[in-house]
């Protein structure tokens, strides 16, 4: 094994790690925005946002790491995917702007407080939809002709992508609800408990639909799943998913506070593993492999040296900041 073979594999997993960290961590913050309309009043909405206010910024940075990491280590994939998905990415960026500034502006505003709540909510829903469309388009496959995407400005639009978009909204909402169970008590926690089980049913439904649809896509994404003996050694993934669903259901029934959030995270992680296994070794299904898209070892190696030290450091101080802000967030606490 030589460097040009090994390094792209390593970076495939690092980028995958950045993306799943983003999905898990910003996912529950976006979920808060999606669930904002279910709160009783503006003060409850403040309360919801306050549970994430100290940490949302760091969470979102994983997305930037995914983007910059892709540019550094798989520039061809970065260029093809981002320019092909121009419009959904535009929607995501604009939505993230509204979501992000709402955190600062809402607590500075008086008369227009509701307006920035709305911006937070709509921004979160649109971000989730856009990310779901991007995911759907990738999973469905982006056929390239001579290294170029020639499907036009709306090539990503398909029934499958629309379904994954809606699925992501429900998924993030589930993460958000279980986060609220963890971080609040009283009336708000009750609302979150009541939302969790229907959301969970919806997420399971979407997972089944995606799994059923996958074999019929042209992306060959799931070929690995259905050929030869692969099914056997990959079987822990679906089995664990089912087990996870049962545990989550019970945890909510028993009014547990920590377990639902952890199990919802596991839910996402398992789904993600399933996708990554299916995609491998393509970074742009169905045909651009990680080795074709990779930057040279001199680039990948250079960043890897830093990443090897810096990512653990980032994780360490992220854990520190979560510890500082651990425990229930009380109403009225948080923003000065």
């Amino acid at each position: 094994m030589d460097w040009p073979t090994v390094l792209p594999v390593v970076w495939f997993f690092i980028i995958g790690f950045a993306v799943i960290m983003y999905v898990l961590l910003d996912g529950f913050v976006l979920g808060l925005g999606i669930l904002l309309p279910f709160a009783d009043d503006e003060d409850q909405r403040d309360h919801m946002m306050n549970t994430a206010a100290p940490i949302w910024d760091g969470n979102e940075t994983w997305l930037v790491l995914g983007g910059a990491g892709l540019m550094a280590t798989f520039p061809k994939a970065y260029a093809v995917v981002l320019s092909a998905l121009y419009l959904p990415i535009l929607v995501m960026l604009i939505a993230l702007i509204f979501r992000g500034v709402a955190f600062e502006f809402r607590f500075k505003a008086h008369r227009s407080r509701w307006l920035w709540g709305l911006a937070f909510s709509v921004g979160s829903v649109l971000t989730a939809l856009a990310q779901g469309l991007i995911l759907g388009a990738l999973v469905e496959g982006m056929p390239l002709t001579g290294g170029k995407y020639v499907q036009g400005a709306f090539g990503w639009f398909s029934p499958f992508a629309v379904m994954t978009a809606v699925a992501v909204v429900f998924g993030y909402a589930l993460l958000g609800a279980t986060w609220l169970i963890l971080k609040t008590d009283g009336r708000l926690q009750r609302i979150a408990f009541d939302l969790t089980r229907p959301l969970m049913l919806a997420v399971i439904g979407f997972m089944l639909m995606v799994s059923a649809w996958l074999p019929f896509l042209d992306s060959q994404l799931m070929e690995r799943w259905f050929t030869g003996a692969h099914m056997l050694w990959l079987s822990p993934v679906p089995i664990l998913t089912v087990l996870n669903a049962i545990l989550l259901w019970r945890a909510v029934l028993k009014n547990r506070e920590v377990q639902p959030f952890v199990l919802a995270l596991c839910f996402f992680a398992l789904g993600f593993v399933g996708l990554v296994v299916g995609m491998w070794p393509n970074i742009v299904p169905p045909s651009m492999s990680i080795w074709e898209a990779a930057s040279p070892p001199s680039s990948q190696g250079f960043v890897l040296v830093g990443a090897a030290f810096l990512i653990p450091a980032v994780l360490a101080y992220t854990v520190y900041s979560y510890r500082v802000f651990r425990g229930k967030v009380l109403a009225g606490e948080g923003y000065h």
Partner: protein
Amino acid sequence: MPTAEFLSRLQFAWVMSFHILFPAFTIGTAAWLAFIEGVWLFKRTDLWRDLYFFWLKIFAVAFGMGVVSGIVMSFQFGTNWAGFSIVAGNVVGPLLNYEVLTAFFLEATFLGVMLFGWKKVSDRMHFLATCMVSLGTLLSSFWIMSANSWMQTPAGYEIHDGVFYPADWWRVIFNPSFLVRLPHMVLAAFISTAMVVGGVSAVYLLKGRFVDRAGAMLKLALAFLAIVIPIQIVIGDMAGLKVREYQPAKLAAIEARWDTASSVPLALFAWPDEQAETNHYAVEVPHLGSLILTHSWNGEVKGLKDFPRDERPPVKIPFFSFRVMVGLGLLMLALALLGLWRWKRGSLVRDRWYLKAWVVMIPSGFIALLTGWWVAEVGRQPWVVQGLMRTSQAASDVPASSVLASLITFVVVYLGIFGAGIWYLFKLFRDGPLPAPQRERPVTPVHGNRRRTPARPLSAPDDPMGD
């Protein structure tokens, strides 16, 4: 319909011009906050704590806007500049990736502790968080200026099949203009912030509000500017020498110099005419051009006619932007020196005309920063990587209609969002450095002893929380 490339350039200019203001302001305010909190730790007087909380709120709003506009930047290289990403991604990508790993996480994570951790961590830990955020902003400028300087003065690369490959990372990062352009940018950020600090203080003094706090801030801003602006002028001069050495066409555009000549004059004003290759209404000072640009009375400066027409940058934008930047720099210096003199005479906080001059000058740092950036970026055209890759090769192969849609969206959204942000900043400035909440001492960290049982009455979250 304009081409996708042209629309992408407009969009980049628009998005970047907004974006650059906020990181610049946060670089300055973060360092300013670290300074204030350091003094507070030492002196423990209310004045410094109040000032800290005041600037912290302003910092938070500016930081929020910097973050969201920065995310746009990190995706734009792929959406609009896919050609650039494919050809130069091997070199520029790792620099940007290091920015995320060393700077963005540090800033974003410790920002939370800084904004919300006052009652949850010790004084020293809180100060450390402030320092980490400030360090993050500086590291961020390190990497971004490295990447940008590489595009101005590329080094340490090889080209195979039209694609850049890194050959020597040390030379890529510390490319010929980097060590001059980095301090020029960071000092510009500090100066812009100091102009805001001093100008806001002047407003309070004019209204007779927060007189002690405003007086202290004005003196700090003054002293800082009086020391730093001269340094900035020296560094700016060094940056000019680098431009002369590596980007002579840019220098010729800055000076609107058409013919190569020795002992050139300095044009104070002119109307450059690119068609006729000449200047109208020129007001010139003999020999001064050579003296400033070459440090010799009769030095030679290259003219635009030495370059093929399709390798010349547009002239008007660099020419006028440069004059605005330098003019404002000199005005700021004059303001600072005048202030020192009034201070020595003991009339600093009472001279209404002087304080009014400060108020007028508040945005001058930002305007100088923006115009300086335009000089650097427009002056590099038509190249995206100086002399090696054209901007036209860098654009994505996307439909022009998509880019038009995004351009319109960005214009509308940025005007709305950043308009609102600036409104909230004004609101915070209007409120002023009010007494910050007292802190019960000693602080016991909440780790571990937070109760987890739902002992609170269910109605508690419905209690009014005040405004």
